[in-house]
């Protein structure tokens, strides 16, 4: 049974894989239809009996049902998965799905990496890959093991979940796979097609053969694949690597990214809010931020009240202000605002400041009509505003804004 059955099974198996490979879509792992589209595959494969003659029906099926899958927006992830067969990563997937029948598994492999024909044949034959395919090119290459490998081989003896976690680390998109696996575990042994049985037997055999050392190798290969599959899609995704001991499923990764973002913003806020430097703890800091914003808003309110209560008679004593300004030039405020030097230059020291402030003087004629219309105090006000705006003019490109509005 072992020898002949294996051969037959392999033949039919390869045919099947090839037939599935004709299917136009390249990846279906990631979309939600995967699971739902799976059952028809299984039933169809039962009907088709997996022989060489079954190719027609298989390809028909794949033509008919997979395009729908392709149109699904969730496919954006497929570039990850297409990588997997090319890296012969699917060999590692074999022990990952222990429960479901190898028939289903081979279908999965075929449907996942349809573009990579040779690789899929390699990857799609679980019984063979130990004896024959290991010597083939891709696998041979994978044998080169580095530090990481040896480090990871220790994990080889660990249960399945650990290995799954590794895969998830390398590519967080395997969640659908896991889901699918759950589905498959319900499916497989119940299917009574002869090929499926054969494949099941082979699968069992593989499971037996795959001792601890092989598992170690597989895990090692996974570890080897991790950087490969991680580098390629870097362009499209913000790729997050989890360190050892951190959770690796996609939700945890996303959550970690979010937390890092928040803490970064918090640091930014910490610089802005005075007296927030020594505070640790987000809650206290949020309190501090809230207090600061409230105090600023109250200050605005208070200042507007102050401005409202300012008496025009007092405020229009511009000469007094300016004399005080000249006597006690408030460098900081003047530098900040840029309009108090403007006042000085206008009223008092035209000649002195003239060479220094050509922009202000140049922009004078624009506003002269307003000067003519306004009475004295308003004129002084306007000069203030105007000077600040001319300072703005000298600074930046918003001269056009101010002219029409005045």
């Amino acid at each position, binding site marked *: 049974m072992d020898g002949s059955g294996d051969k037959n099974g392999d033949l039919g198996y390869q045919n099947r894989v090839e037939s599935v490979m004709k299917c136009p879509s390249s990846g279906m792992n990631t979309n939600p239809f995967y699971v739902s589209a799976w059952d028809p595959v299984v039933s169809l494969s039962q009907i088709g009996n997996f022989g060489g003659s079954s190719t027609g029906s298989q390809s028909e099926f794949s033509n008919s049902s997979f395009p729908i899958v392709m149109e699904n927006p969730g496919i954006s992830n497929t570039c990850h998965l297409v990588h997997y067969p090319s890296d012969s990563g699917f060999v590692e997937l074999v022990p990952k799905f222990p429960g479901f029948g190898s028939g289903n598994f081979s279908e999965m492999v075929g449907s996942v990496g349809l573009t990579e024909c040779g690789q899929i044949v390699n990857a799609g034959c679980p019984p063979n890959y130990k004896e024959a395919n290991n010597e083939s090119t891709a696998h041979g290459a994978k044998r080169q093991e580095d530090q990481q490998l040896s480090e990871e081989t220790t994990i080889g003896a660990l249960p399945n979940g650990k290995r799954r976690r590794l895969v998830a680390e390398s590519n967080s998109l395997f969640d659908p796979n896991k889901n699918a696996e759950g589905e498959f575990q319900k499916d497989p042994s119940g299917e009574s097609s002869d090929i499926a049985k054969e494949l099941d037997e082979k699968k069992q055999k593989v499971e037996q053969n795959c001792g601890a050392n092989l598992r170690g190798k597989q895990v090692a290969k996974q570890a080897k694949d991790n950087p490969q599959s991680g580098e390629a899609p870097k362009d499209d995704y913000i790729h997050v690597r989890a360190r050892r001991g951190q959770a690796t499923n996609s939700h945890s990764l996303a959550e970690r990214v979010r937390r890092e973002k928040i803490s970064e913003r918090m640091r930014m806020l910490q610089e802005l809010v005075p007296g927030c430097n020594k505070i640790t703890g987000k809650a206290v800091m949020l309190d501090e931020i809230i207090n600061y914003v409230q105090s*600023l808003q109250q200050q605005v309110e208070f200042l507007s009240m102050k401005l409202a209560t300012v008496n025009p008679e007092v405020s229009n004593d511009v000469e007094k202000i300016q004399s005080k300004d000249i006597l006690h030039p408030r460098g900081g405020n003047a530098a900040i605002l840029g309009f108090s030097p403007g006042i000085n230059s206008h009223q008092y020291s035209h000649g002195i400041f003239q060479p220094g402030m050509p922009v202000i003087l140049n922009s004078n004629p624009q506003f002269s009509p307003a000067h003519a219309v306004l009475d004295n105090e308003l004129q002084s006000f306007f000069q203030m505003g105007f000077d600040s705006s001319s300072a703005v003019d000298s600074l930046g490109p918003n001269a056009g804004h101010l002219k029409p509005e005045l």
Partner: protein
Amino acid sequence: MTSKHVRATRHTKFIKNRFASRFLRSHLRMKRSDRFGGSQSNEGVRKRSTHRIKIAAYASMALAVGPSRTWSRALLFKLRNRARLQGVLRKRCLVSKKNKKKRVVRNKVIISREPSRTDTLRKLVPGGDSMDICCLLEETAHYIKCLATQVKVMQTIADQLLL
């Protein structure tokens, strides 16, 4: 890094100048209308003018920042639709005076939890209701920067006028 810093400072300076010019202009306009309009001694009038100056300050700040930020957009939207919203609110108050009790009870049932710090911050930052926490923090940072600038400018103006 340094160029980024320089650009940031220049940007804040730019915003500051724009805000100062806008605010001064609106302030002037208000003063002029007040001068032509009526007395200043009245308490109600003063309150109203305080409110107006505050709104002018916020509006000029939002205008100076421009629509690139969520908070400024929300602020501008609020200010622009102020009159309309107030009218709607008044009408709604008049209409729903009868079943006010019911509504309050229902609200209490729905929002049972205590408002967290984040919710408080959301209320403080304009437009914060519709942001997630990351956006909220970013907008808060920018809003704080602008508010500080605004306070500084207004302080300077008030000092200038009072001295």
